[in-house]
């Protein structure tokens, strides 16, 4: 290889939401980084939405991207949980906590755009290239990219999604859980305002979650056994609307469905390790649960915030960010956070069919702390908001809204 060899402290593979957030966190902390994604140059459109918890919102505020995003988000200020025919089982008002909204629903395109704009300012625009191979050297990891360049970095971050090529190249195996349910996701319009309310209704076959969007619209995540979901998906649009309206039960007036629903068989992919040598997996590359795109997203951001903080503390002492001690500490904390996610997800059948009330909404908010939820409403809320310290130790500074 005769190409000029480049050096950076952190190389990030994958310019999805998690990768872009990681690049923003590292660059904001003064850590030299690069981000590559084979799709970085192409047209992008992701109409999906993500639930950003209060903790993640604070991270984005600390990184200077929330201000631009705020006007386009839909806050969640109320959570209602109903079981089957019991109309109101639990009702959470976030004002009870005085911490602001429990979370915000954000369009992926908007979040991605705000992060890209911030990265442009920081001088770290995503580069259209893919990781082809890498090898560990003493003190470095040497990565070969598809554009022919070779980059030496202290850390290689695999933020390249559920099917992570970096994970495969590292030889890190996965555990996959497939569940018997399918989640159908669609956007609805309703005739009455939702008053910033997220609703979860429990039915014997699975939960029916409604997350507020801007205007008189909401996102519906409706879970049924595969067989029933398959039948529902084949229904003509009018009949599907009738079935949906029966579950919706006139909560915010009459619903109409926007566009065809999308079906996701529920499955979980977990990487067996999050750290191997100088390779670190984050986001969906480490833990991915269909269908709710945001599932684990906020948990993944906690990982990103922690790694950036540990690395920043180290480089400010003149030490290198990929120091084995940094990565070992990171791996230790992530093991605990992920063990919690696994414990939760192993119980996912129960949860997605007839679990504890409130947990589905918590899940929909992308939170995996279910089994550690104390029987106290406010504590439950803090968990849902992603601002509760976990067993893995205190919250990373970014999640507290502090710069690193």
């Amino acid at each position, binding site marked *: 290889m005769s190409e000029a060899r480049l050096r950076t402290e952190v190389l990030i593979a994958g310019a999805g939401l998690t990768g872009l957030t990681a690049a923003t966190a590292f660059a904001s902390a003064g850590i030299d980084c690069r981000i590559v994604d084979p799709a970085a140059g192409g047209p992008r459109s992701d109409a999906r939405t993500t639930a950003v918890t209060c903790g993640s919102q604070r991270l984005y505020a600390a990184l200077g991207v929330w201000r631009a995003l705020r006007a386009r988000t839909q806050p969640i200020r109320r959570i209602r949980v109903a079981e089957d025919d019991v109309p109101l089982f639990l009702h959470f008002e976030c004002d009870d906590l005085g911490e602001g909204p429990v979370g915000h629903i954000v369009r992926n395109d908007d979040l991605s755009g705000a992060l890209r704009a911030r990265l442009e300012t920081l001088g770290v625009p995503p580069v259209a290239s893919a990781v082809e191979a890498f090898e560990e050297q003493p003190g470095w990891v040497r990565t070969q990219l598809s554009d022919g360049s070779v980059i030496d970095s202290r850390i290689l971050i695999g933020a390249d999604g559920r099917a992570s090529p970096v994970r495969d190249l590292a030889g890190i195996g996965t555990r996959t859980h497939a569940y018997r349910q399918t989640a159908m996701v669609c956007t609805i319009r309703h005739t009455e305002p939702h008053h910033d309310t997220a609703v979860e209704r429990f039915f014997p076959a699975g939960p029916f979650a409604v997350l507020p969007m801007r205007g008189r619209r909401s996102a519906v995540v409706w879970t049924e056994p595969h067989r029933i979901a398959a039948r529902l998906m084949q229904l003509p649009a009018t009949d599907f609307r009738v079935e949906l309206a029966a579950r919706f039960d006139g909560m915010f007036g009459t619903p109409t469905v926007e566009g065809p629903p999308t079906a996701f068989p529920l499955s979980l992919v977990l990487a067996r390790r999050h750290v191997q040598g100088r390779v670190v997996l984050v986001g969906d590359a480490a833990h991915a649960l269909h269908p709710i795109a945001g599932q684990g997203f906020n948990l993944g951001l906690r990982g990103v915030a922690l790694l950036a903080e540990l690395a920043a503390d180290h480089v*400010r002492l*003149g*030490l290198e960010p990929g120091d084995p001690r940094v990565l*070992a500490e990171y791996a230790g904390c992530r093991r605990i956070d992920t063990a919690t996610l696994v414990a939760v997800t192993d119980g996912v059948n129960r949860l997605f069919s007839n679990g504890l009330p409130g947990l589905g909404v918590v899940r929909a908010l992308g939170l995996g702390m279910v089994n550690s939820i104390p029987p106290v409403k406010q504590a439950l809320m803090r968990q849902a908001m992603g601002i509760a310290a976990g067993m893995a130790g205190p919250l990373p500074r970014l999640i507290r809204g502090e710069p690193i």
Partner: protein
Amino acid sequence: MARANASPAAVDPDEIARFDRLAAEWWDPAGPMAPLHAMNPARLGFIRDQVAVDSGMRRPLDGVRALDIGCGAGLVAEPLARMGARVTAIDAASAQLEAARRHAAVEGLEIDYQAAALADLAAGGQRFDLVTALEVVEHVPDPDAFLGQAAACVAPGGVLVGSTLNRTLAALAKAIIGAEYVLGLLPRGTHRFSKFVRPSEFAAPLTVAGLQVTAIRGLHYRALGGGWALGDDVSVNYILAAVRPG
């Protein structure tokens, strides 16, 4: 530099031979020097806090003239250079200096590694804003003379930072019996109890040389926390700072 190695007052040949064998493994974070790697964040944090104005910056020691005494393969010199200091680093063991030079070149760091004896440097009149002597004084034959020479290198307004093991039974138990024999953290024979230096013994020659001790902290290994941290108990490992009034 040809005559630098020959200064017999400051270096003990037995000690040098012992460390020469370790030079190649020095930079392996899981190797024999793992304890020094592990102590580094706490030690460097202490140094930075004595000298830097803003700990949030990448180059908090920008422009600081630094001398690292007993630099080994550069475990302290390199971070100091990355923090922005202009580093001169000396050691009596040539194999380590060679390892240090090679490593710094790979890292793209400019560090002036010299096989100089401290006595010559002190007599030569070079003065520094920061002088570090970490885990060194317990290996020299005449600590008083060594510390006096180190202090002489501190410029007005500059600071000396030193760390070592305290001559207490706690230190004996933890450093020699614990670290060397039981846990195998350090190669056997690394330390001799008679050479451990009490804080008062560390401070005395510095005071004589016109420095004022401004801070002293203990360095503690947290077995469960997985790292070294600063604390109030100075009975085993400690680190201190002394400034020359400017």
